[in-house]
């Protein structure tokens, strides 16, 4: 239970409603427990002598008691279930605002599916605890006390005998529920095996078809499906027990009442009305006893889920403003320095960047080249503090980036990432994503610079066209140009392009570079690329290899150096010749 204690603050927030809810539980039970007593009196009266007026009186009392009970039952749901939804909302809010502040490192180590599972399944399990579990357990507790009290007042020994089987019910439901949970986990395992099999098959369909292994794949899949069926049947066996056992136990109570109660009536120590009331009370107690077992299971699952959620809540933010933040920094000029910077993604992994020393003067353009996996993206990620370097320091305008207010740092740096990610929203909302408010002029201007405006004209609703799953699909090049427009729109002091033209053809790229030139005049820019054509006009070019600066200089200097850069240059010339060949 210790993890569920962390929900205390939410309970306190809604304590008024919850206490009212508990009060209504009592009141509602008073009403519904009164009904069998009326029936009892009516039947007892019938065995002696009764007038029609009295019968009408009893009937009206039954309806009134039911109205009373029903009214409060309505209020119980309106209190407790509604509160559970409100706490669910609060919990999800806390979850999301926490998640957003976690460093990118966290998302690298945890798949989207994994985080989603916490956000959906775990919060859901906790919600079930908050609502139904709390409601049924308070209901059961109060009902049990009142009903047993009334029953004892009617006939103590019959109460004892008839209630004997009921605790058995709770234990059984609890045990079976636990077993079902175990079996369910086994089923889930098989299900994910089945999913993996299907996934692998469809992904590797070429190999399967090449080797004519379709029949074999089908029989394997069939076998897995059969295993899945068998695991399901294991669960069904238990579930099939559950229902008959439930009514066997409750039915047994009723039979005890009829038999022993009947004997007592014949002896004259009990009235027929009392016996009827007993049968009715057993009916009232059955469901709460069953629910009790379920509730305990729910609590156990919620506890496990809350433990996982608490683990996420305990994840440190790592990158945030703190005591060393210098709030007097109001703007950036754009001079960037790397002093002996080394970086690794994880303590156990080797360095991705080794002792980088580099100065990028404000307003200049730096180009970074190098093969895949040599540390180019890691290097630029350190500037807006998407990651913090593990050794050395990164400075902007002479100040360590760790002391620059995070908001300023990130709103003054525009990055176009290697894999352009756009939201399923309108084009214009995507372009103005980094702005505090919408600015149509900026949309048009940045789209023009990014050479995206001509494309937008061909879309059905222009800038209001929705993209993504429920809208149009952009080509790779269009996506890259849209992300470029998005970065330009924030009017950044530092613009970083991480291989942002890879899906754009060379001619368009050249034009974009031309219009960017004007835009980048007073800004510092960093361009990562594989293409010589993209980088050749940069003020300085560095070639990264194995996490270190391998070559640096201007285009002409590097060509005459005859190293990696010169080799790439030569090959790209050849490629161009080949492409132009018809």
């Amino acid at each position, binding site marked *: 239970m210790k993890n569920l204690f962390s929900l205390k603050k939410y309970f306190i927030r809604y304590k008024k409603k919850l206490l009212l809810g508990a009060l209504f539980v009592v009141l509602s039970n008073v009403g519904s427990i009164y*009904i069998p007593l009326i029936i009892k009196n009516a*039947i007892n009266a*019938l065995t002696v002598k009764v007038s*029609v007026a009295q*019968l009408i009186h009893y*009937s009206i009392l*039954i*309806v009134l*008691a*039911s109205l009373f*009970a*029903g009214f409060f039952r309505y209020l119980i749901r309106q209190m407790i279930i509604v509160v559970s*939804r*409100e706490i669910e*909302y609060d919990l999800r*809010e806390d979850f*999301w605002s926490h998640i957003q502040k976690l460093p990118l490192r966290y*998302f690298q180590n945890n798949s*989207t599916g994994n985080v989603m599972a916490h*956000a959906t399944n775990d919060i859901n399990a906790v919600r079930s605890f908050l609502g139904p579990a709390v409601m049924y357990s308070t209901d059961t507790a109060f009902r049990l006390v009142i009903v047993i009290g009334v029953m004892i007042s009617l006939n103590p020994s019959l109460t004892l005998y008839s209630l004997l089987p009921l605790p058995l019910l709770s234990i059984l439901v609890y045990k079976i529920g636990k077993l079902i949970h175990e079996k369910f986990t086994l089923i889930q395992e098989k299900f994910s095996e089945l999913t*993996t099999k*299907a996934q*692998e098959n*469809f*992904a590797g369909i*070429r*190999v399967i078809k*090449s080797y004519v292994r*379709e029949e074999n794949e089908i029989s394997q*899949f069939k076998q897995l*499906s059969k295993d899945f069926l068998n695991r399901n*049947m294991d669960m*069904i066996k238990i*579930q*099939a027990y559950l229902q*008959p056992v439930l*009514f*066997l136990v409750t*039915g047994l109570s*009723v*039979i005890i009442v009829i*038999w022993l109660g*009947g*004997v007592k009536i*014949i002896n004259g120590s009990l009235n*027929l009305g009392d016996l*009827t009331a007993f*049968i009715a009370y057993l*009916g009232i107690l059955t469901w709460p006893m069953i629910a009790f077992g379920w509730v305990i299971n729910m609590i156990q699952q919620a506890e496990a889920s809350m433990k996982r959620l608490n683990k996420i809540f305990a994840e440190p933010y790592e990158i945030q403003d703190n005591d060393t933040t210098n709030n007097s920094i109001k703007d950036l000029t754009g001079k960037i320095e790397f002093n002996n910077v080394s970086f690794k993604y994880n303590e156990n992994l080797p360095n991705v960047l080794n002792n980088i020393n580099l100065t990028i003067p404000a307003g200049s353009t730096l180009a970074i080249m190098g093969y895949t996996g040599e540390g180019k993206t890691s290097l630029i990620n350190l500037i807006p503090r998407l990651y913090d370097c593990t050794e050395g320091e990164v400075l902007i305008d002479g100040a360590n980036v760790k002391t620059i207010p*995070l908001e300023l740092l990130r709103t003054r740096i525009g*990055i176009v*990432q290697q894999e352009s*990610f756009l939201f*399923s929203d309108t084009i214009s909302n995507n372009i103005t994503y*980094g702005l505090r408010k919408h600015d149509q002029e900026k949309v048009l201007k940045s789209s023009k610079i990014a050479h995206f405006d001509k494309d937008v004209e061909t879309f059905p609703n222009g800038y209001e066209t929705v993209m993504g*799953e*429920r809208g149009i699909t952009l080509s790779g090049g269009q996506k890259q140009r849209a992300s470029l427009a998005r970065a330009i729109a924030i009017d950044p002091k530092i613009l970083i392009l991480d291989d942002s033209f890879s899906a754009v053809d060379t001619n368009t790229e050249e034009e974009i570079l031309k219009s960017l030139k004007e835009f980048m005049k007073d800004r510092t820019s960093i361009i990562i690329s594989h293409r010589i054509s993209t980088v050749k006009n940069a003020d300085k070019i560095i070639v990264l290899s194995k996490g270190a600066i391998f070559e640096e200089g201007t285009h002409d200097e590097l060509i005459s150096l005859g190293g990696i850069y010169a080799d790439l240059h030569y090959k790209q010339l*050849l490629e161009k010749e*080949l*492409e132009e060949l018809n």
Partner: protein
Amino acid sequence: MAADNIEDEILGKAYDAKLMQRLLGYIKPYRKYVISAILLNVVVAALGPLRPYLTKIAIDKYIAHSNYHGLFLISLMLFGSLILQAFIQYFLTYYTQYLGQKTILDLRTQIFTHTQKLALRFFDKTPIGRIVTRVTNDIESLNDLFSSGIVMVFSDVFIVIWILVFMFFMDIKLSLVTLSVLPILVYVTFLFRRKVRSSYRNVRLHLARLNSYMQEHITGMAVVQIFHKEKDEIDKFLDINKEYREANIKSNLYYSIFYPSVELLSSTATALIIWYGGGEIVRSSLSLGVLVAFVQYTEMFFRPIRDLSEKYNILQTAMASSERIFKLLDNKTFVQNPDHPHDLKDVHGEIEFKNVWFAYNNDEYILKDISFKINPGETVAIVGHTGAGKTSLINILTRFYDIQKGNIFVDGIDIKTLDKKELRKYISIVLQDVYLFSGTIKSNISMNNNDIPIDKIQEAASLVGADRFIEQLPNKYDEIVKERGSTLSVGQKQLISFARALAFNPHILILDEATSSVDTETEIIIQKAIEKLLVGRTAIVIAHRLSTIQSADKIIVMHKGEIRETGNHQQLLAKKGIYYKLYQLQYKDQEISKAV
């Protein structure tokens, strides 16, 4: 979790007779069992309602006449009926669930089998996740329908019928008085069902929005943080979160009205029994036992009716899933097999392309008028720049795709007249992007083919030099391979795929050499392995290795979908054409590094 799917589902029809008919078709093989289950249901449904009737007998006949023995006997009978009901109920639940599972198994296997027959063209166009969902989640939602939905509805209906039978048998007038609340109950339930249906849709819709928002923003968290949009995003999130909460609270409102209303109606029925039945007792035209039994029946009667509305949601979800499943089953993107395929007996391995034209999309020809001939046992290297059409060439030889114009012959027989499977048995393809399946090293080499004995597997592995690293693995050939072979190096994966090709001992080998760089030692092992692979069979190699090109009998140079140059290494170099440029771009460095 695509919001799309769920929204489709929400907007879809709740019940579609055609879909239902097709679904029920899957129960047909088990018709006899289904009918006997339903009949058994009729019997077992009577046992519950029987007990209040027995109670009536106990009260009127034995308690009223102080008959201890009779009371004991009737208690035993009550107990007997309870045991019998429990027993049959267990059997019935187990049995019907088993039938449901069997039906699901049939359907799942059918869909999977169908996907295996679909052409690559289908897989090119359809995201894998979507196909996976069809054989997994969509099927699961049908499971609910088959295993609990249909059967439970039957048993609920029978229970209600039996209660009515017992009530009317005991006292017609009192029954009619008790049932006078029924029209109101039906009306309330109907109202509730309509409200719940739309609120259920609303909840699902907002849940889908919430989930797709989270999914999208977790994926794009880097963008959120880069633009420092955390604050704005939380506002957006809270709006969606709030809508979801409100949808739930609204749906809760209906439940909080409905349940007490049903209770009230049930109590009203009880009140009517006390009033009218009591009056009858006073007039001595009714016994007390009947009254007590009726009080019990009202309890029993209301539950199944209350539950019917929940069954409705199951039906709705199942309908949407089955629609998607059937859509996949109706997809007929096949590469046609000939009706009377030619026999391919003794393959020599001669290949001829004659004026072949091929496009993935109409008229955008990737291959233009390709003609060449390869003699049995020859090795042909195909070289060309990106987009020259090399991969397409091998895709059409094994009929992954069909060509638009021209002919391809193997041993002089047009491949369109051959059985696809026969054709592919004689041709092995080693792809550049090595695909390993989760399983063992052994199962990856044999592709789970039990006809290939372990010594053949080992022989193949040792021929390509893969045995050295395999022998060093803790479990050797039984070492577990994870999904996509993530625990193995690039070089090791390549060697396994070579061994795989050798184990199948094809007459014709197609090799798409990987471009990814490996260390020198592995490179030497791979080069030797390729030499072994090519010996004694016709081979087409999309070459990235200088050594492979140099040892080829013939080199075909492709450029923009056409064959531009043919010859051997020296002849082509002397031409100073495309090959010469390609050589400098891709192969020259290898010469240098070899020299070093």
